[in-house]
């Protein structure tokens, strides 16, 4: 059990007022709020140990390097991985682009297939479209079941030996649907395809031991798990990381540089050109420490309880339709919905007047919107710091939206 009152006091922004009301932050799928521990870790880094890493023979530089590499170890252990296979990137988007350009561009050919799901975030679509244009590989989409989960029906027909990559999110940022990770990775493995797991929504909300998924790569972002902006991580198997070309050249990622030829540093540094996000790594490390101290199991259970409560309460609002599974074992706490003929953007504006922050739009998932045949959805998303009272406020504000729209 979480002592929610104490926990909430770790997040300074939660005491803020918005439009005369105490902030109700229900947009954690977009980015999460930060506990003081994370902010203080970065502040302390800058006030006490700031220096460039891997470069100097002076004390500050040694300290900064230790903090940076120490953060890598923390983040790696948080997902059950080895530091040497954990690359710091700018975020999920950059991580997936690394894979697409660093692996895809060099290993895909005309006629090959890249399989992905219609529920993917643009970060896991656009890079593959670009690689597809460069290589002639074709994009094939898996669609959804009636309850908005990846439809594995007919996957045997789709997965043939021309499939080289199967890429999918661990949890959809729109429907909240989780998985099916192992079924997809097994199916991919059976045709010798490589698997990419977009962990942007999964890793923040569920205990993850990457060894339990038989995937080749996983990407995630610090800012979605209490950490700072500007950093994320790419995990990969040793073999795949070795096969990958670096997608940025510069300092730190080299072994030797001559006028015309250079050689690369070993993984993970091969993929970390230039001055890395050092303070951000420190903050990322503090974020996973915070999450681990609360306990990922506890967090997942809290979110399941909250999501169950939210789905039940939202069912009381007339004309409200949820786009996502109802079973909280099959979904996380990103709840997309529409309400009568009120456009999501209007819902968001009305809620904002009561200090309630939700997101409205295509959630960087336009192909999914087209598939669902909606222009946009409203989305409330929860994290460890949310409480049932906030869902009550959400529901009563939605009732007010109905009134304003004369319903």
């Amino acid at each position, binding site marked *: 059990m979480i002592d929610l009152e104490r926990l909430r006091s770790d997040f300074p922004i939660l005491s803020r007022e918005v439009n005369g009301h105490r902030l109700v932050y229900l947009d954690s799928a977009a980015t999460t709020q930060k506990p003081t521990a994370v902010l203080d870790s970065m502040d302390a880094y800058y006030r006490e140990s700031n220096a460039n890493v891997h470069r100097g023979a002076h004390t500050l530089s040694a300290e900064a390097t230790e903090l940076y590499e120490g953060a890598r170890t923390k983040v790696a252990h948080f997902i059950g991985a080895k530091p040497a296979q954990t690359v710091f990137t700018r975020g999920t988007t950059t991580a997936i682009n690394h894979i697409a350009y660093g692996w895809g561009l060099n290993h895909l050919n005309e006629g090959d297939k890249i399989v992905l799901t219609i529920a993917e975030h643009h970060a896991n679509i656009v890079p593959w479209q670009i690689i597809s244009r460069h290589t002639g590989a074709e994009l094939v989409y898996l669609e959804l079941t009636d309850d908005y989960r990846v439809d594995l029906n007919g996957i045997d027909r789709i997965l043939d030996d021309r499939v080289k990559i199967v890429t999918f999110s661990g949890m959809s940022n729109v429907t909240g649907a989780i998985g099916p990770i192992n079924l997809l990775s097994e199916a991919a493995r059976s045709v010798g395809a490589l698997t990419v797991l977009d962990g942007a929504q999964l890793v923040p909300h569920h205990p993850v031991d990457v060894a339990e998924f038989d995937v080749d790569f996983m990407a995630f972002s610090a800012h979605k798990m209490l950490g700072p902006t500007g950093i994320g991580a790419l995990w990969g198997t040793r073999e795949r990381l070795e096969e990958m070309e670096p997608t940025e050249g510069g300092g730190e990622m080299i072994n030797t540089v001559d006028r015309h030829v250079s050689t690369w540093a070993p993984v993970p540094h091969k993929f970390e050109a230039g001055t890395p996000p050092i303070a951000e790594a420190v903050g990322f490390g503090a974020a996973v420490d915070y999450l681990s101290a609360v306990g990922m199991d506890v967090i997942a259970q809290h979110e399941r309880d909250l999501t169950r409560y939210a789905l039940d309460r939202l069912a009381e609002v007339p004309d409200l339709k949820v786009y996502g599974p109802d079973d909280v074992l099959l979904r996380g706490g990103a709840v997309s919905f529409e309400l009568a003929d009120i456009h999501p*953007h209007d819902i968001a*504006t009305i809620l904002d007047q009561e200090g309630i922050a939700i997101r409205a739009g*295509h959630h960087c998932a336009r192909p999914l919107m087209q598939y669902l045949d909606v222009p946009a959805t409203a989305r409330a998303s929860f994290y460890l710091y949310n409480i049932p009272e906030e869902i009550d406020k959400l529901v009563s504000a939605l009732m007010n939206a109905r009134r304003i729209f004369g319903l």
Partner: protein
Amino acid sequence: MSQLDELYREVILDHYRNPRRRGTLSGDHLHAEGVNPSCGDEFSLDIEVRDGVVVDAAMQGQGCSISQASGSMMMNTIVGKSVSDVEDLTYKFKLMMSIEEGDNPVDPDRPGSVLGDLEALQGVRKFPVRIKCAGLAWSTLSDALQQAGQES
């Protein structure tokens, strides 16, 4: 009236739910499309201009009440007006939407006096992030008229 009720006036909800001039034109016409990538709102319009006058107009689109009502009201207002009157109207509308109040040469108490029905949209000014919703139709219109200018 609360700021919200001022934003979502009845006339706006009416235009949102019953958009005027929905459809496409078949004869000779100008066409333009606009999209607001941050929220996904879309707006496209056909206008027929004869002898410097907008004689017919039709629109399609999807989006929030503000963007669609703004478009519907705009379509209604421009038909029958000369291109230069429409340009003038566009200018005045954009001024009304400008949040820098000091810059606003329209009568601040009754900015709608020159804008008719469109006056109802002034509630948007209290919601800065929604101003681009109201503006989508108008910038699409400007695009269409610019083509006219280039053709003539």
